[in-house]
């Protein structure tokens, strides 16, 4: 995937001798124009991503309104602590990514490699916690499908005085909990897939950063990857409250 850069002298575009850096493509008049075009393209891609995740967010909005008791009960089973820790981890990862863009702009190669590695480490840590959460859902039989069990929601555990610790649901309402968990896995899974792709790209960027590709004035790949990584952060900033936080005090 390395950009194969042909030297402009070899191509022989006499009219474009103003080109200074090898990464400057001949169809752009100036480096600034090229840079803006790159950012513009990246943002257009991110807008398609907003529309893509937007469909999932809308489905969540609609079904939460339709099957409110089921969504409220299901949301209580998610571990708010893991969600909060993961939010902090992801923000930290984004912070190091932002510093990586700075390092690339300032041509600090060592700092660039270090910050990219830290971005990757925190990204992997996030996915690690996600595995713990997914495993808990598997153990509890909360994964939608053939093995899904409404038991925890129809007959919730009782406290010492014999009262239910949570409001029990009717069996048909409890079935709608599958919808919550379907959306939970679709949304967090799609988010995790974006992170896995991002971590793959980070390995490639770290390799190239070690070669010094991005500390000689060629910032665009780091900058545009940064946009992608921060976008994935933003998706989580909305997933966390929607899935974990807003159903703790359901209306009756």
């Amino acid at each position, binding site marked *: 995937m390395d950009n194969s850069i042909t030297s402009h002298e070899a191509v022989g575009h006499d009219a474009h001798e103003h080109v200074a850096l090898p990464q400057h493509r001949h169809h752009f008049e100036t480096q600034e*124009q090229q840079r803006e075009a790159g950012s513009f393209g990246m943002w257009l891609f991110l*807008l398609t991503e907003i529309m893509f995740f937007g469909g999932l967010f809308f489905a969540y909005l609609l079904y939460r309104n339709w099957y409110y008791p089921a969504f409220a009960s299901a949301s209580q089973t998610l571990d708010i602590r893991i969600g909060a820790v993961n939010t902090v981890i992801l923000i930290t990862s984004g912070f190091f990514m932002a510093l990586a863009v700075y390092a690339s702009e300032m041509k600090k190669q060592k700092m660039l490699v270090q910050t990219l590695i830290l971005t990757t480490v925190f990204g992997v840590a996030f996915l690690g916690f996600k595995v713990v959460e997914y495993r808990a859902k598997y153990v509890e039989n909360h994964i939608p499908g053939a093995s899904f069990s409404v038991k925890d929601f129809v007959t919730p555990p009782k406290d010492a005085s014999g009262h239910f610790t949570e409001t029990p649901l009717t069996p048909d309402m409890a079935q709608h909990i599958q919808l919550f968990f379907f959306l939970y896995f679709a949304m967090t899974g799609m988010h995790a897939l974006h992170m896995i792709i991002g971590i793959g790209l980070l390995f490639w960027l770290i390799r190239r950063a070690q070669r010094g590709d991005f500390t000689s004035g060629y910032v665009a790949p780091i900058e545009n990857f940064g946009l992608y990584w921060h976008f994935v952060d*933003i998706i989580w*900033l909305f997933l966390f*409250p929607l899935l974990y*936080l807003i159903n703790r005090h359901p209306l009756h």
Partner: protein
Amino acid sequence: MDHAIHTDANDPTNITNPEHAQHHIVTPAQYCLVFATLLVGTAITVGAAFIPLGWANPVVALAIACFKACVVVLFFMHAKYQSRLIKLTIGAGIFLFLSLIAMTLTDYMSRAWGMW
């Protein structure tokens, strides 16, 4: 290619755009401030989830999430320092997203709401 026609006033191919010269590098100190803001926002939103606020619980949580997203877009993603073209693109995307949500929701709400 005739470079003579390109002036600040007549720049159809976006070459001499003065916004290009305003390239801005956000400092680590600013990034630290943004990082701290996001952490405080996370702490507040988690804290607020444990306080019974009735209908306001989701409103507060989403308002904080929107605020955090704005901070990330403006500073981590440098939107504040980009050209008007990029700012307009971001704004158009958010507007389109909200329009689609609103239109789909009006459709659902005006058909069989409550009859599922």
